[in-house]
């Protein structure tokens, strides 16, 4: 798990695209660091692969 965290941090910051990252934790009461950081990595991968779905708010949103 430590190796995975190190790889995540390297990918995000040292060799990556992120200047700032903030999170809204989920409903699980017992969050695990590796799982939470993996969620960030998933979104970064979607950005890198241009797979993130963009949205617009409607007038009544």
């Amino acid at each position, binding site marked *: 798990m430590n190796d995975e965290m190190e790889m995540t941090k390297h990918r995000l910051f040292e060799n990556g695209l992120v*200047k700032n990252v903030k999170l809204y934790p989920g409903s699980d009461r017992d969050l695990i660091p590796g799982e939470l950081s993996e969620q960030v990595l998933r*979104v970064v991968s979607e950005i890198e692969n241009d797979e993130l779905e963009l949205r617009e708010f409607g007038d009544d949103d």
Partner: protein
Amino acid sequence: MPFSDLYEFSQELDIKVRRKIIKEELIRLTGKNKIAMAVSGSLDPKICRGLYLSIKSEHIWAQQHGCDVVVISRQIRDTNYCWDRFVTVKEMMHIFDSEVEACDTGDKFDTLIGEFCSGALPELSPQMTSEVKCFWRALSVLCPERKRLDFKTQVAAGKLNHYDVALKLRIPEQYVPQLLHERYDRILPILLNDELVVKKSPAEAGP
């Protein structure tokens, strides 16, 4: 650009406060070209409901869509409008993060993730303090103070309950007690003067 400018703007709005209007005002106040809103099918809402990323301007994605992106779990977007609204507005508030508050290194990321998972540190990092600030900022822009005071009176009189308030504001019901609590009266001026220093666990301080 201080948060207080957005707060003042939001006080004139009717409820429910529209995210589109908040986003447009954020863009106007910051002078940014864009703030991207996105949906991710890979976010598990049990682990992470959403997030904010500031992306290096040299990256091709940032050149196309802007440097700031707010991402919500698709599952939340599709199933819970109030959570969708609250999470996206809270994450938008990170546009106000200072350099000190930015989570921009591996060590800061380690600390932030650890604080979310343990919640037991006596004093929070600047990064976690900004998480707490943005929670309160989101509440304060989604509920103009005149309405909050009115709700407080009506709830105290038994004319409205927390669910009624949540439904009018379109925010998660579980945050209504915090909105109406006396602590909010103490936090708001501190928030507007950007003096919030949190010395409690995240669970006690915010979301």
